[in-house]
């Protein structure tokens, strides 16, 4: 009787086909560059939201609405949104490449990651650009102070 243990990994042949753009290389560079930028953006975001002034107790609808009418914070948030979601999505993709063994599960997981990243980016971008800080009929104590002067 001879039994063979299945090989732990299948050394299938590497593709010799070369496409024009090396996405793995650019993906790797993107992770490094966006990582550095995100450190500044995220810690700046946390510092402003949680530590400056009244700190975390200042957070409410009016605070966020006030930030989202300021072009500086709109640009900050939009950059942070795109960089972080693509960074996270790409990281998840490499994890799937590492640990999903079958072609089908790999495909399903990657599509799921792509769909969630794209929909979150679209939603977030819509919010940043179409946000109404002073919804009609809202009580004055819940909205930003500048709404009353409109």
């Amino acid at each position, binding site marked *: 009787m001879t039994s*063979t*243990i299945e090989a*732990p*990994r299948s050394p*299938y042949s*590497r593709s010799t086909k070369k496409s024009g753009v090396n996405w*793995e*290389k650019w993906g790797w*560079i993107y992770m490094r560059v966006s990582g550095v930028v995100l450190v500044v953006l995220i810690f700046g975001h946390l510092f402003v939201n949680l530590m400056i002034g009244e700190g975390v107790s200042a957070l409410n609808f009016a605070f966020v609405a006030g930030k989202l009418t300021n072009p500086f914070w709109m640009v900050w948030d939009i950059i942070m949104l795109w960089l972080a979601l693509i960074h996270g999505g790409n990281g998840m993709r490499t994890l799937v490449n590492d640990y999903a063994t079958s072609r089908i599960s790999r495909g399903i997981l990657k599509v799921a990651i792509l769909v969630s990243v794209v929909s979150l980016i679209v939603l977030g971008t819509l919010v940043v650009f179409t946000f109404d800080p002073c919804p009609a009929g809202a009580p004055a104590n819940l909205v930003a102070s500048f709404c009353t002067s409109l």
Partner: protein
Amino acid sequence: MSSATIDQKPVVPEEIKSFTVTLIIRRFNPEVDDEPHWQDFDVQMYPTDRVLDALHKIKWEQDGSLTFRRSCAHGVCGSDAMRINGRNRLACKTLMKDLDITKPIYVEAIKGLPLEKDLIVDMEPFFDSFKAVQPFLMNSVTPEKGKERIQTVAQRARFDDTTKCILCAACTSSCPVFWTDGQYFGPAAIVNAHRFIFDSRDENAAVRLDILNDKEGVWRCRTTFNCTEACPRGIQVTQAIAEVKQAIMRGKA
């Protein structure tokens, strides 16, 4: 003649105590077993003995069927890389005194390569990756008759670290990406590519950089430093991989 030496007692070397060590070895015999299983052995060892000595003692005195590779037994040939207490080590370089002998010592074959018998794995996939990076000097110019290819000390020092590789597969089989990805070149192949990419006498660095710029090339490295920790020659493997990444980004060595 002085009589002072007569009173002196002969110097008796302090007796070195031996102790019983339990080794738990992952056995697999393809002709009998369906699954690998763990088997324990007790051996009498000295602190200066190595794990390889324990394996020898077992094979020679207790169970001749224990199967493992070793050639030089002095850390040069790279035959006896194995997983000792969960870490990839050369059995011939791991001393008993450096292990916690109050607990059993677990010994198993390196991971990520097909298991053949006991501590022996099929090294062919590993050597295939090694071959794929073209690990040999390529130079179109023949030096003058009787002359050598001249290199400065600094040029030689540039790739000195990666010349130390003995192809034991301790690094590659400690890499989590290699465990799961059937195509990744693995640290050892990149180290050996590094050795020629940064050699001033070699002309084909661009070819090797192009090979490693593959989807399954250096970009799969997650810098977990498992390979650097595993290397019995102390090669800074992760740094070598990072240098190859840098060279690919700059487009030259």
